[in-house]
């Protein structure tokens, strides 16, 4: 097992970083170590949407590009640092739609250069994505336009999960987008609530929810590591804290103060 700082060292300037959606296991515990580590110019890939972590990385000036289907704080409203960066033109945007992010990761998982996807024709989402292609479905005799999404191959995936075993197997349960992220990524960094002694692959019941060690580069223990987000089956979202952040981060100073003062419970 490693420390959070050791994990953050895998991140180099300019890398493409995959981060999961709010409810799937965000490693909030890694946010500050990533900011302290300081590798910037990052290209974030939100799988398939982003929230608090994305907003804080943007606010800390580490982000060059955001590829996402949405960035939001959910009940706490819009993501203030993201919204400001968009308004200021401070970040590049690759607006997507959820299944297109999944399709890009699936292409990488399959070792394919692209995946086809229905929908999208006639949207401005497609219009602004010059990295996507439209072809005529070769299985239809008459014209049938279909979009091809190129493989998304993140350099690093970062997420949080309930548990790992001593062999490096991580239990992700039914949050299989975490597996998809890991399959597609060169390096996968995982924080977990706890390490269990028995092998998670030994028992078929737990094995069904395992991301095998084969896909996991490094693991660190971080109790309540998703906080203020919740973790399924473990603890609920601390909505009040996210509200507190949303209010504070409306201004540059408020954001700076929040990031200086507020620390995860486990670290306080």
């Amino acid at each position, binding site marked *: 097992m490693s420390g959070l700082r050791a994990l953050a060292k895998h991140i180099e300037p300019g890398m493409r970083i995959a981060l999961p959606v709010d409810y799937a296991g965000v490693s909030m515990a890694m946010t500050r170590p990533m900011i302290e580590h300081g590798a910037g110019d990052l290209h974030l890939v939100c799988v398939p949407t982003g929230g608090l972590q994305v907003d804080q990385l943007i606010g800390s000036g580490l982000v060059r590009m955001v590829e996402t289907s949405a960035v939001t704080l959910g009940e706490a409203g819009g993501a203030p640092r993201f919204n400001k960066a968009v*308004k200021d033109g401070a970040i590049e945007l690759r607006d997507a*739609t959820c299944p297109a992010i999944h399709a890009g990761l699936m292409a990488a998982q399959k070792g394919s250069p692209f995946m086809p996807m229905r929908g999208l024709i006639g949207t401005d989402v497609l219009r602004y994505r010059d990295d996507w292609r439209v072809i005529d479905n070769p299985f239809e005799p008459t014209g049938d336009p279909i979009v091809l999404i190129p493989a998304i191959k993140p350099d690093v995936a970062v997420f949080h999960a309930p548990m790992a075993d001593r062999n490096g197997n991580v239990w992700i349960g*039914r949050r299989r987008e975490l597996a998809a992220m890991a399959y597609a990524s060169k390096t996968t960094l995982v924080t977990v609530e706890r390490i269990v002694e028995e092998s998670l692959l030994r028992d078929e019941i737990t094995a069904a929810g395992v991301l095998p060690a084969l896909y996991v580069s490094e693991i660190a223990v971080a109790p309540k590591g998703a906080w203020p987000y919740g973790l399924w089956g473990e603890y609920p979202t601390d909505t009040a804290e996210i509200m507190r952040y949303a209010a504070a981060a409306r201004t540059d100073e408020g954001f700076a103060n929040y990031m200086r003062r507020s620390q995860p419970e486990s670290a306080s």
Partner: protein
Amino acid sequence: MSDIHPREVLICTIARLLDGVRHVAVGASSPIPAAGAMLLRALKERQDARPVRISILGSLEHNFFTNGSAELFDCAGQGRIDAFFLGGGQIDGRGNVNLVGVGDYPQTSVRWPGSFGAAYLYFVVPRVILFREEHTSRVFVDKVDFISAPGASDEGVYRPGGPYALLTGKGLFSFDKSRPGFTLESTHPGFGLADILESTEFAFEHGEHPATTALPDTATLELLRGRVLDELEETYPEFAAELRRATAR
């Protein structure tokens, strides 16, 4: 029983719009669509009719999915989701939906979260119900600034799905994809055609004297205020409590 609450009208209207579906998916933070779907399910159960399946995104209790966040889209692509709800920061008269922002993309002056799954689901789910409680000309614009998902598609584009109705805090519209455009079907109690015209920038078809949106009967209202709010409480405790307070007077 107390008077019918405006939100109860919305919930009952949604239940009616959903009639006949086998499986309806409801996005996160959508208590009114969720309540409408739950009401339909309760009504069908009472009639011993074919059961209605509800998937509520972000809810553990109503999460039937076990293949990550891609499964909803796969499921829709397989034709296994009959109805879905879409909102929109802007919605125009062609049924185009904007979930991205106001002004010139990408440096929009107002930025909303983003398109989520709309650019796919709007194409493949047969019965998409556009739902936005706020009915103002700021929302219902002549032309959206960004098309997250179009209301209609050119011939030859794969498009089994699309808009079925537009429900707002003031009225109910149907959608005609051949034009494409909306037709005002009814106005909710307290609103008339003039209110709708005034708060809608886009043009729409309408009769001279649109009907009033149908109101639920007592039995339906009892079901809503009882079992449905109990079920809703699990996922939306604050919404359920508020509606309970408002209708308890």
